[in-house]
């Protein structure tokens, strides 16, 4: 599904942040990328989703056999990539429902599926709102406007559930959540686990991994993956902290 080879990236005209990432994620797998602040986790998510402001200086990224880096951000999304934002953007004046329907129909058109009419759309929305315990009235507001931190994160997972991506990149979706919200978000993620879908969880803490069990865990430090392992790695990190990276790196 996703093949990253020797990826180097930097902030436009700035310092290099990713210094040779190699990572393969197969369909059906859940990978967790952990690491201390400033290790390059969010940069990796941003580069994969096509966030402006980064330059790839070397390496390649293939997604379902396509050169991902050659695609515009919206083309990547229509090809099935979803980035759950660490800091979801507030967009006053753009109604949530209107936005979501425009997004869903864009993605559906790209998949060769018919656009949903208002009734079908609403039905689908209702079912998924319930899953994440999001109040209906939030959807009548501007995108993320007046949402609490937890509501913003739940809204990201709700959007993911609506758009049904093939590759979901979740950038610190667990940060700032209380335990109830964390359970809801984790439940939403687990519900989306599927044989034809890959999920990459980017997180600073292992807390989320108590609820979503990853197939692989990678530890990122100073722009490189310095450790990879199965889910037991999380427990080890929990015990020793990122200080143990000193030895591994």
């Amino acid at each position, binding site marked *: 599904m996703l093949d990253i080879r020797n990826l180097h990236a930097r902030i436009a005209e700035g310092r290099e942040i990713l210094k040779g990432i190699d990572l393969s994620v197969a369909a059906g797998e859940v990978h967790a990328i952990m690491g201390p602040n400033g290790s390059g986790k969010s940069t990796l998510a941003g580069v994969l989703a096509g966030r402006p402001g980064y330059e790839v200086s070397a390496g390649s990224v293939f997604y379902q056999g396509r050169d991902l880096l050659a695609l515009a951000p*919206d083309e990547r999304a229509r090809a099935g990539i979803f980035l759950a934002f660490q800091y979801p*953007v507030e967009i006053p004046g753009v109604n949530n429902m209107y936005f979501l329907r*425009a*997004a869903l129909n*864009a993605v559906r058109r790209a998949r060769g599926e018919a656009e949903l009419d208002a009734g079908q759309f609403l039905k689908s929305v209702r079912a998924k709102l319930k899953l994440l315990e999001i109040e209906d009235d939030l959807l009548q507001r*501007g995108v993320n406007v007046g949402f609490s931190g937890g509501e913003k994160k739940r809204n990201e997972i709700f959007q993911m559930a609506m758009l049904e991506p093939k590759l979901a990149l979740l950038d610190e979706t667990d940060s700032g959540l209380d335990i109830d919200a964390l359970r809801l978000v984790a439940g939403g993620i687990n519900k989306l686990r599927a044989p034809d879908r890959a999920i990459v969880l980017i997180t600073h803490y292992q807390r989320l991994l108590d609820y979503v069990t990853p197939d692989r865990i990678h530890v990122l430090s100073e722009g490189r993956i310095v450790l990879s392992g199965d889910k037991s790695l999380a427990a080890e990190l929990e015990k020793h902290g990122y200080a143990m990276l000193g030895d591994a790196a």
Partner: protein
Amino acid sequence: MAMPCLETLPEGKMVAHPETSPYLDAFRARAVAAEPSWLAGRREAALGRFAALGFPTRREEAWRFSDLRPLAQHAFPPASAAGMAAPDALAPWRLAGPTHRVVIVDGRFAPDLSEIGTLPPGAWLGSTARALAERPALVEAALCESDDAGAQPFAALNAAFFADGFVLALDPGVVLEHPVEVIHLGRAATPRSFHVRSAVLLEAASRASVVETFAGAGAYWTNAVASIRLGAGATLRHVRVQEEDRQAIHIALVRAALAQGAAYEAFALTIGAGLGRHDILVRFDGPDGVCRLDGAFLLRGQQESTTATFVDHAAPGCTTRELFKGVVDDRAHGVFLGRIAVQQDAQRSDAQQLNRNLLLGRRAVIDTKPELEIFADDVKCSHGATVGDLDEESLFYLRARGIAEAEARRILIEAFAAETLERVDGTVRERLAAHIARWLAGAAA
């Protein structure tokens, strides 16, 4: 320094303002209509003021950003006869639902296209020409008032030439349930000017909603002046849509005077005209009045448009809320001049003004100049102006959900402009949103 007076100038007096001579010639050559004698004298005097003032120049602060060459380079002789328009020309501009409709073609009332309908007792709505014939006393003051608004040469020219317009007058306590819809259509195969003069006179505690649209085809010049007088506790909602032909010139002056507790709630959408200027002057004559001035200007190509507002807090306890947004693309030039004055006696004034602009084209230009002049000490006033591009993070968020860049930009621009519509009601708001959406789709180009 004494004002130059036409009569005392030596021969060759027109040399100072050669751009005025086609209008002075047209005035002498025009067929004189049967009208009250006081009006003839005012027309003469107004023409004299126009001749003495000449066209505004960039040396005047209020016109510093305006390039009036398109207006000065051609003569636009005043249209001398009523125009014709097919009923389907109204279709894009009609409001949904019942209205009292006044249609003005080439600056003159078009009875066949108008449908004033049934008015409640104490309400008068009709053409300015009819008001002059039937109710001269009603309009005499309103037609005079705006001529002494300082150096306003185009208002003076309008006062000299105006043929028609509309007048709405409500007796105390009269409430118009349906909006008054005024559609101005201009047509010109060769350059012509339409001088429209209108008045809205609402007596105490009366209420009305007026939706005016300016549209047309050709290289004409609309020169519109409207006087609005609101009695104690009266409320006027005034929506103005300017979607003139892109070859046309639109110059308009709206003056509103508010008595105690009156409310003037105005919205102005500017989309059309190659050269446009819209002055809105509001004065609180009595305490506790409310003024809401909102609007949006959407410009592309080589359009140039100025919105100039001046709200004069001449009485205490009044509130002003003003939000204008500009979207300027290509090589267009948008200007916002917003002035709020709080006079010495106007304690407890509360005024907020904001002008926000999106600069989309690399060669597009915005000039914005918010000004507060405060002479009272117990006031709450704020103003601000911003000029920027679309928010990159918002754009990325929409694109990261699969929405193509052009569509994402359209959504964000629409949301930016639509914020100004928040205080407009129901069907009118939908109509305005549709105008904005059409502009974004490029259909207005």
